[in-house]
Structures are given as structure tokens and as C-alpha cells.
């Protein structure tokens, strides 16, 4: 490009009236944020992992319906309850042409568990990984784990030779020097990174040597990714045909895009469940001025539950694009059952319950909310706060950006009475939801939950910021972990969900729908976990 600035200036006026031309084979795609890094082990975050899933591949992958598919592993078998054997695909090469072998899996297994990797829990520290031959790898665990590979869809395999040649160390967030892997990749996936300007633009091209060619309908040759944090700007860019796919689309903008002649919407429920967590741990409730903590009383929790008119939130704020939830896991997660029903919306009953518990005049507490983490999170928070006011509960909504919000709700601050959060079980199995959200967060039987000196050791219940504690659930969760018989396991899960629902451990709200804005004639598959798989994109020729 050697345009002279002056002549460009003249061109600008001429071009102002010409619609934007685009190559049919280039996918121009925008989302809220950028992939944080090209190093697949540094941050576990949906967008980054999903983005890297087009560049790197794991041993397994999830299909558009989230079912498990073979990827770099062609097949696997359970030799014993603790001994897994994975047979690797043979015709795979990394983007630099190196063939993929068992050694790369061993390297990846080492690196994913080293340093400050965010993906440590993909493999227990004591799991042994052994190369049987160049294309066979064994995983030997100390305890039976029937869902060992469930979380492996975003454990991407890296190339040992490339990593060592480029001095790539552990995935370390506090590194003093930039890692080569932050800006560069060497995956086996269908796309290779061409240029990368973090936060500005990333361009990718299809990898000619990709083993899966022809197995998917994909016809794009290039991808141009731009992060566009501002929702209105994203919509504007889609409508002015500067972009082919944008995500996410706010629910209120869906109608506008559907009405546009040149764009459309694909929307579906997410696998993420939105819920309210109630502080049952503190002895006094933050923001209440009370000596005690009313939220420890089950009746009060049920009263709050019944005071929330989920249908109106669903209709007005989410414009029908959500699925009210009765459980802490969504349909599609193993262990979900539609036999559970929400407590009915019943203001009178709610008031009765409060009166029974001794709070006929209501009380107040701090209600922490985010405004940039979930679909319409701020509006939902305010609506909940307004609804609770009608039964006399003053939930003082404190709406903050993600950084401040997380600081407030994470232990040890726990500076809240109630907070709104969303959860997606990484393994798409109920166990993880029970394990991290419902198990008692304590280092051992005798220590207090969230005791400062124990905080470093807490693993079970580490997302249980409300401090819900029921020994029965702890017992069930441990049984579920090692139960290999599927029917028995599902029965145990069902039992656990029955107890937590009865306890009103949490207040599940809904699964919101994710909406994708798509330029006319572009076809793609959306996934409930919001991962965007470019292999399914078909652009008009």
C-alpha cells in the first residue's frame, strides 16, 4: 500500500458512499474482550480457551451439542478403574510441520501442572503419564475417576521441541519477561496465527496441513478478529457490515438485528446458570446492622426465593431469552433433571415466612452485583432489589465493575449479604458443581470454614462464598467422585440436588441465552458454553 495521504483524503469522500467490500472467505469476527494470551495454560477463561481451540487442540473436543468427540486422541479405553489408555492420531503435524507424538502429550501434561498454570486441575498432581509408544499414552490415577477426560477439551497439547527451542518456561503470570508463547503459537488446529496485536486485532489463516480437512463444512480461509468491548459499537459494526459475526448481543438489541435486512441472530440457552449466593457464614450480616445473620435461617432464604418474580425478569429484562432454573446446573450438564421445580413466586407466603422467622418488618443487607460480567447483570440485580423491597427486605444493590466486584465477594472479604454470580461446570458434570459450590470450605473437619490460616488449603467448596455447609452433601459429593457405575452415580447426584434444593442453599435464577449477531448468509453453530468453533462457519461463496 503506497497511497499518498493527500490522494487518500480525496478518496475518503468518494468512498464514503460506497458500501464496504469484503472477501467472502474472510471471517471478520468480534467479541467483547481479546484472548488474553496465546499461551493456552495461563488463563482459564471461556473466551481465551475457546479462541485458542481453533489454533490448538486437545486429546478430546466437544461437539456443537457439547458431546465428547475424539480429537488428537482417536480413541481411549479404561484398562482398569485407575488406568486409562489413549491412542493418538497419527497424521497430525504442528503448524511448524513437526509431527505430533506421545512425547508432546507428556510435555503438555508436565507443563499444565507446573508453575502458576490455571489448568492444574485437568490432571491431579499424582497422576502418572506414560508414553507406551509414539502414539499411545497411558494415564494412571491414584483413585478412580470416571470423568477424567471430561475437562480435557480445553487442555491443549503443545509441542515440546518448539517450546524448548523458544525457551518457553512454565505458565507464569508474574513473569519478569515476556514468554515467547504469549504472542506466538504452534498448535495443531485448523488455524494458525498470522499477526497479533493484543487488544487490537488478530489475523489467522487456515492451516493447510490440518488433519481434519474435509471432515467439517468450514470454508473460511482467513479470520480477522477484533475485540470490541462496547456493545453498541459491536451492533453498529455488524449493521454497517464491517463484521460478519459478533458476540455477545445484548437481548435488547436482538430485535433490531433481526429486523435488519443484512443480519440475523442465532441464540440459545447457555450452559451457565445464574444464581444468587446468600451469606450463611458470617455471624452478622454485612449491611444489616443486626446482631445475628437472618440468612442462616432456611425460612428467610425461602422467603427471598419466593419474593423474586423470575417470570417478569425473564419477560421484561431478558425479553424471553432465558430459561428459569430450579437447579444449579443447566440442561446438558450430566445430572440435570427436570423433576426439580422452582419455589413458586408468592409474595404473601414470603411475608409469612419472614414473620415466622421473626423478621416481619424486614431487614437490610448489602447486595453485590457486577455490571460487565453477565447478560444484563446490572438490570437483573436492580430488579431483584426492587422485588425484595416489596416484602420489606432492603437489598442495597452495590453495582460494580468486575474487578471491584470480585474483590468484594471473594473470601476473605465476603463483604456481602447476597451476590449474583454465574457458574459453568467445566466438566459439564454435576459433581464439580457440588464439589466447588456446595461442599463445606474447610481444610479439615475441625477447622472453621474460611479460617484465614486454612484458606490456602481449601480446595473443596472453594467457590462456596456463601459458606453453605451440610455434612450430608460433603459425604455425597465424595461418593459421587469415585462411583463408576453411571446409574448409581446419577442417583447419588439426584439425592444431593434434592437436599440442596430443600435447604435453599443457593437461589438459582436462570440460564440466560447467548445471542450471536451474524451477517446475512453466514452459517455457524453456536454452543451452549459460548465457545465459538470456526470449523463450523460457512461463508457465502
Amino acid at each position, binding site marked *: 500500500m503506497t497511497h499518498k495521504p493527500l490522494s487518500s483524503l480525496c478518496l475518503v469522500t468518494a468512498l464514503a458512499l460506497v458500501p464496504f467490500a469484503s472477501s467472502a472467505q474472510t471471517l471478520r469476527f468480534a467479541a467483547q474482550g481479546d484472548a488474553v494470551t496465546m499461551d493456552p495454560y495461563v488463563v482459564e477463561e471461556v473466551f481465551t480457551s475457546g479462541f485458542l481451540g481453533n489454533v490448538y487442540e486437545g486429546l478430546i473436543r466437544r461437539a456443537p451439542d457439547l458431546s465428547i468427540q475424539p480429537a488428537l486422541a482417536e480413541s481411549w479405553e479404561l484398562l482398569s478403574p485407575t488406568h486409562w489408555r489413549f491412542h493418538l492420531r497419527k497424521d497430525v503435524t504442528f503448524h511448524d510441520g513437526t509431527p505430533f507424538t506421545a512425547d508432546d502429550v507428556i510435555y503438555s501434561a508436565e507443563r499444565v501442572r507446573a508453575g502458576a498454570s490455571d489448568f492444574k486441575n485437568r490432571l491431579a498432581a499424582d497422576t502418572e503419564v506414560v508414553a507406551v509408544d509414539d502414539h499411545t499414552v497411558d494415564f494412571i490415577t491414584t483413585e478412580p475417576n470416571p470423568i477424567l477426560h471430561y475437562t480435557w477439551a480445553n487442555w491443549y497439547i503443545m509441542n515440546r521441541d518448539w517450546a524448548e527451542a523458544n525457551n518457553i518456561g512454565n505458565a507464569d503470570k508474574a513473569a*519478569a519477561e515476556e514468554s515467547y508463547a*504469549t504472542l506466538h503459537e504452534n498448535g495443531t488446529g485448523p488455524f494458525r496465527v498470522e499477526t497479533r496485536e493484543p487488544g487490537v486485532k488478530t489475523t489467522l489463516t487456515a492451516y493447510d496441513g490440518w488433519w481434519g480437512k474435509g471432515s467439517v463444512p468450514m470454508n473460511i480461509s482467513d479470520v480477522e478478529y477484533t475485540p470490541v468491548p462496547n456493545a453498541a459499537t459491536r451492533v453498529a459494526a455488524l449493521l454497517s457490515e464491517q463484521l460478519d459475526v459478533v458476540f455477545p448481543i445484548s437481548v435488547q438489541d436482538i430485535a433490531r438485528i433481526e429486523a435488519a435486512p443484512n443480519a440475523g441472530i442465532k441464540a440459545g440457552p447457555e450452559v451457565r446458570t445464574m444464581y444468587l449466593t446468600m451469606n450463611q457464614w458470617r455471624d452478622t450480616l454485612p449491611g444489616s446492622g443486626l446482631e445475628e445473620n437472618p440468612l442462616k435461617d432456611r425460612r428467610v432464604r425461602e422467603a427471598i426465593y419466593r419474593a423474586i418474580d423470575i417470570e417478569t425478569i425473564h419477560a421484561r429484562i431478558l425479553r424471553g431469552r432465558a430459561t428459569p432454573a430450579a437447579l444449579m446446573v443447566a440442561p446438558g450438564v450430566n445430572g440435570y433433571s427436570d423433576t426439580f421445580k422452582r419455589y413458586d413466586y408468592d409474595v404473601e407466603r414470603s411475608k409469612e415466612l419472614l414473620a415466622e422467622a421473626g423478621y416481619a418488618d424486614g431487614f437490610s443487607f448489602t447486595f453485590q452485583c457486577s455490571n460487565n460480567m453477565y447478560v444484563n447483570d446490572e438490570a437483573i440485580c436492580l430488579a431483584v432489589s426492587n422485588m425484595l423491597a416489596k416484602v420489606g427486605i432492603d437489598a442495597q444493590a452495590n453495582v460494580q465493575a468486575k474487578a471491584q466486584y470480585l474483590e468484594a465477594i471473594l473470601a476473605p472479604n465476603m463483604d456481602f449479604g447476597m451476590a449474583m454470580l454465574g457458574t459453568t461446570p467445566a466438566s459439564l458434570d454435576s459433581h464439580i458443581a457440588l464439589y466447588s459450590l456446595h461442599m463445606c470450605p474447610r481444610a479439615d473437619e475441625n477447622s472453621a470454614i474460611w479460617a484465614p490460616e486454612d484458606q490456602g488449603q481449601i480446595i473443596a467448596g472453594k467457590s462456596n462464598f456463601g459458606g453453605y455447609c451440610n455434612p450430608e452433601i460433603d459425604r455425597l459429593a465424595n461418593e459421587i467422585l469415585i462411583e463408576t457405575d453411571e446409574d448409581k452415580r446419577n442417583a447419588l447426584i439426584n439425592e444431593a440436588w434434592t437436599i440442596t434444593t430443600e435447604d435453599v442453599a443457593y437461589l438459582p435464577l436462570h440460564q440466560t441465552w447467548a445471542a450471536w449477531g451474524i451477517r446475512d448468509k453466514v452459517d455457524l453453530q453456536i454452543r451452549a458454553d459460548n465457545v465459538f468453533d470456526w470449523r463450523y462457519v460457512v461463508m457465502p461463496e
Partner: protein
Amino acid sequence: MIRFLLERLLQAALLLLVVAFLAFVMFRFAGDPVAQMVSIDTTMEDRTALREALGLNDPLPTQFAQFVMRALHGDFGLSYQLGRPVAALLADRLPASIELSLIAFGLALLVGIPMGVYAGLKPESWLSRAFLIFSLAGISLPTFFIGIMLILIFGVELGAFPTFGRGDTVDLGWWTTGLLTPSGWHSIILPACTLGLFQMTFIMRLVRAEILEVMRSDYIKFARARGISKTRIHYGHALKNTLVPVMTIAGLQLGSIIAFGIVTESVFQWPGIGLLFIQAISTVDIPVMSAYLLLVALIFVSINLLVDLLYFLVDPRLRMSSK
């Protein structure tokens, strides 16, 4: 002259140190970076280890000393969020901001000064009144609102201009420019107008006031009495004398262009340092934020120095007294 410069440099260095300290202190308290860097499921142990590794547990003076020492070497550390050296991040983003600021500022000067001169020379004409009302509207409408409206009208309804980004850029090795491609120029128009509008009306009002003031002065009356032509009086005598105060304020305004750039860049998703900064705020990316602030202070100080030097060129009184 040299003594004056040295004095100003010393002052500037002091100012930068203070700004560095404030930047450091303020961002030290702007939220917990660790909460941002890890996933919700990370254990307390790992969080504590990370905090230790980042040096967040060191005493404040130690942290500040390290900060300054590294800053002097152009090393602001790695971005917590992006894992890249902050200096490199800023260097990548700076061209976009500078191009936007300069185009907006140029636009403001190019349109604002003639408008101001006209309104100052003919204060009673209806066009001057129109300019004045327009300028009031310009300083009364918030930048973000103007940006949104421009996007809505020219981007969405008319589809005439891109609504975000820089368009195609050309990498010159040390500088990435959007000014060498049609789409680059196409993309810069709306944000530059948004950013420039406030400055333009501001400069217009300033020039107008100064011209009115200068035209009342004795030497203009004397020049008229000597029969010097109107054009010479207006554009030679009046405008030149107007330039001195206009330069100061306009110089200071360049600083505010950078500040308002944050808003414009965020509305138009312009990939400049302002956008980087606002993203850094929401993720509490301390190294990026403090480096940005220092950079802004540095730019501001340099502009002030430049304005002072320009003074010397324009005003002989200063040139002489410093000899």
C-alpha cells in the same frame, strides 16, 4: 535561555517524579490485581503465592523505588492481563492515539482559528453570532454523547463511515499508520470529529476573545491611524499578538485531548492508549495504568516545554530578557 531551559527541565523532572509517586500510590489501591489474574476457582494458596511473586507484599517505599528504577530504564513490567511488556503495549498503541489526537487537534485549529478570527473581527455579524451559539453547543454536549450520535447517524442510519477501529494500517517498522490507506482515513473521520469538536469550539472562543481584546489595544489603533491596510492589521498585527495566549491554552488543551481521547477511543473502539487505559482500569492492570499515567504526564510536560520554546520564537520580549 539555556538556564531557563534547565530550570524548566528540572521542574519537569520533579513533576514527573511526583506524578510517578501519585500514579504508583493510586494504582496501588485501585483494586486487587490478583483477583483479576486468576480464575474464580484458584486456591487461596496460589493467590497468596502470586501476590508474593508480584511483589505486592513488599513495603510501599521498596515497591516505589523499584518502580522508579525500572521506569527509568523504560521497563514498566509486564501487563498483568496481557502478559506483554507494558512499554511494548504502549508503543504499539501510541501511534493510533497520536494520529487521532493530531488529526483532531489539526481539525480544531484549522476550523477553530478562522472561525474565531472572523467572529472576533466582525462581532456583530449574524454569522459570528451563529458561530458563537454553535460553539456553546459544542462545549455543552458531552463528548460521549456526540460520539454515540455520530455513530447512530453516520455509521448506522447512513452507513457512510466505519463505526469502530482504525481500518487498514501500514506498518512502517517503528510506526503503524492508518493515514496511508483509504480505509484508515475513512475510519478516522468520525472519532476525529468527535474529539475535535470540543477543542474546535474552545479554540474558536479563545481566538475570538483574544482578537476582540487585541483590536482594542493602542497599537492596533495606531496602526490604523498610520494607514496600514486592514488585512495587514488583522492578519499581521492582531493575529500574531493573539497567537501567544492561544498557544498556551491550546498547548494545555492538547493535554485535555489526551484525556478526552479516553472517552472517544472507548466509544469508537479506537485502539489507542486511552482504550488500553480504560480496559486496564476495568481489569486493574496496574503496570499499564501507572505507565499510562506517566506517559500522559510526560507528554503534558513536553508540550508545556514546547509551548515555552514557541513563546521564545514569537515574543521578542522574552527572547531578549533571557539573554
